[in-house]
């Protein structure tokens, strides 16, 4: 059934039920065979439609050309500089968002009064697409790393805030009463009861936020010309270097997969000890 974090994500989205995230790591040998075959078939299909001219090679460089270009790029220093610049924007943005959203979420989550007072502003700001802020950033922070970090942090802030609020709010009342009758003071209750029980929610928020932060770091680079993979994609398009365009897009996709896998692993780790997991995982 639902992991607590995802339930909160669903509740934050206004209802609906989320089961444990789809986990489809192949386990048996036949499953690995299907996995490999499936990827192989897709790549072969790509090669075929490009080589046979269903889509001209000018518009869609063949799979082998694109991967060859990617292989050439990964041997250059410029590629890794851009790659690390994107990772830096992502990491700083996520860090800033976490540093702000988690304490604020704890504050708003522990006090019904505060949560009520800020409900409307949060509900209004949350759905605003961060991309709409790009023109404003051009004029204020300029085409600098600061803009990239701000955009990534702004996007990552909301899912983290909402998840933390739900997590702290959703603490087991009996555990809280027990802590109180043991004479734990306010701080100890927060540190020893509320925070540990909110960790799975925060981990889910972190998984969602890390994807969002990458998208926005890349967006800032693409639209504002801040150095990184996004800027490379923009150059490749401007100069009509289609091979590079596809190679950089492939690389960006792999970075996305990498970040998704890492944050999912952290989330599972954070959820492992949680009672809901022990009860529902056979």
């Amino acid at each position, binding site marked *: 059934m*639902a992991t607590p974090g995802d339930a909160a994500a*669903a*509740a934050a*989205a*206004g*209802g*609906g*039920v*989320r*089961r444990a995230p*789809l986990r*489809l790591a*192949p386990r048996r040998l036949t499953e690995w065979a*299907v*996995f490999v075959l*499936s*990827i192989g078939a*897709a790549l072969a299909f790509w090669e075929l439609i490009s080589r046979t001219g269903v*889509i001209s090679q000018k*518009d*869609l460089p063949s799979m082998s050309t694109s991967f060859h270009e990617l292989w050439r790029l990964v041997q250059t220093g410029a590629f890794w500089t851009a790659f690390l610049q994107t990772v830096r924007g992502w990491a700083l943005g996520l860090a800033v968002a976490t540093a702000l959203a988690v304490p604020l979420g704890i504050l708003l989550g522990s006090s019904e*009064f505060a949560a*009520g*007072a*800020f*409900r*409307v*502003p949060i*509900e*209004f700001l949350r*759905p*605003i*697409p*961060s*991309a*709409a802020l*790009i*023109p*404003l950033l051009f*004029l204020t922070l300029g085409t600098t790393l600061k803009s990239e970090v701000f955009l990534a942090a702004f996007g990552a802030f909301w899912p983290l805030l909402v998840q933390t609020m739900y997590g702290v709010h959703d603490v087991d009342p009996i555990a809280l009463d027990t802590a109180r009758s043991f004479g734990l003071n306010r701080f100890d209750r927060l540190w020893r009861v509320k925070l540990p029980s909110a960790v799975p929610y925060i981990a889910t928020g972190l998984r969602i936020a890390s994807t969002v932060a*990458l*998208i926005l770091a*890349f*967006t800032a680079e*693409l*639209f504002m010309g801040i150095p990184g*993979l*996004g800027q490379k*994609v923009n150059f*490749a*398009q401007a100069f009509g270097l289609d091979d590079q*365009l*596809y190679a950089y*897009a492939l690389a*960006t*996709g792999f970075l*996305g*997969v990498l*970040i*998704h896998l890492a944050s999912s692993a952290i989330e599972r780790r954070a959820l492992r000890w949680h009672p809901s997991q022990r009860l529902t995982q056979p």
Partner: protein
Amino acid sequence: MSRRTYTTLKIGAEIAVPIAILFAWQAWSANAHDPKFPRLSTILVEFKDMWLFSQFGTHVVPSLERIAAGYALAVVVGIAVGIPIGLSRWARLWAMPHIEYWRAMPPPALLPISIVLLHSIGNVQKISFIAFFCLFPVLLNTIDGVRGIDPTFMETARSYGLGWWETIRRVVLPASSPQIAAGMRNSLSLAVIMMVLSEYFSSTSGVGYVLLISKNTFQLAPMWAAILLIGVLGYVLNLLFGLAERRVLAWHRGWRAGFEAA
């Protein structure tokens, strides 16, 4: 403090805080004299002049059409493809590597490619772009919802001799609909973002286009009005979806309330 005073205070705060924030913004922007941050009142007047309704037809309607078409496409394809994948373990194994790769791809990375590939900076490219990235929340939630259907339901359907179409219509779709709705809601907020991105990159009309042009020409009040409109758009669409969902899933809410309380 009595319970009633507390409740009154809380509701008061819920109303007062947003108003206080707006006032603070107005007061700050009036004193800042910074052309980058026009007064809130100036922005609101500009908002009224632009969007109610002189430029509504030329720019808001095209954006809304793109959102509607892209979103509708994503929902139909997501559900149609998600059901068979959800029902079959082998289909899941086959499809998941691709779904996992494409949904981890930051959408703007495909923006230039979509233009090269589709030879278009018009509606074809915009709608395809919106549809492609709105697909994943619907698709993943459909797969997950279908996968999680109580096997008893499916066995009951089989023992009643329901054909595959009837089984999907009467069992699979209703049983997974709450989760499909959750996916559709995420997709809808995504649709607004994708609309802005695609119009911001290359276009001749739309809200994203207005945003880009007003920035490039340093027309700051219109720029702020466009940002505000995008915010309002996201908020209103989310609100409308909530209302529609409540109606369509009314039969389901009791059970869900029980689930969430648990």
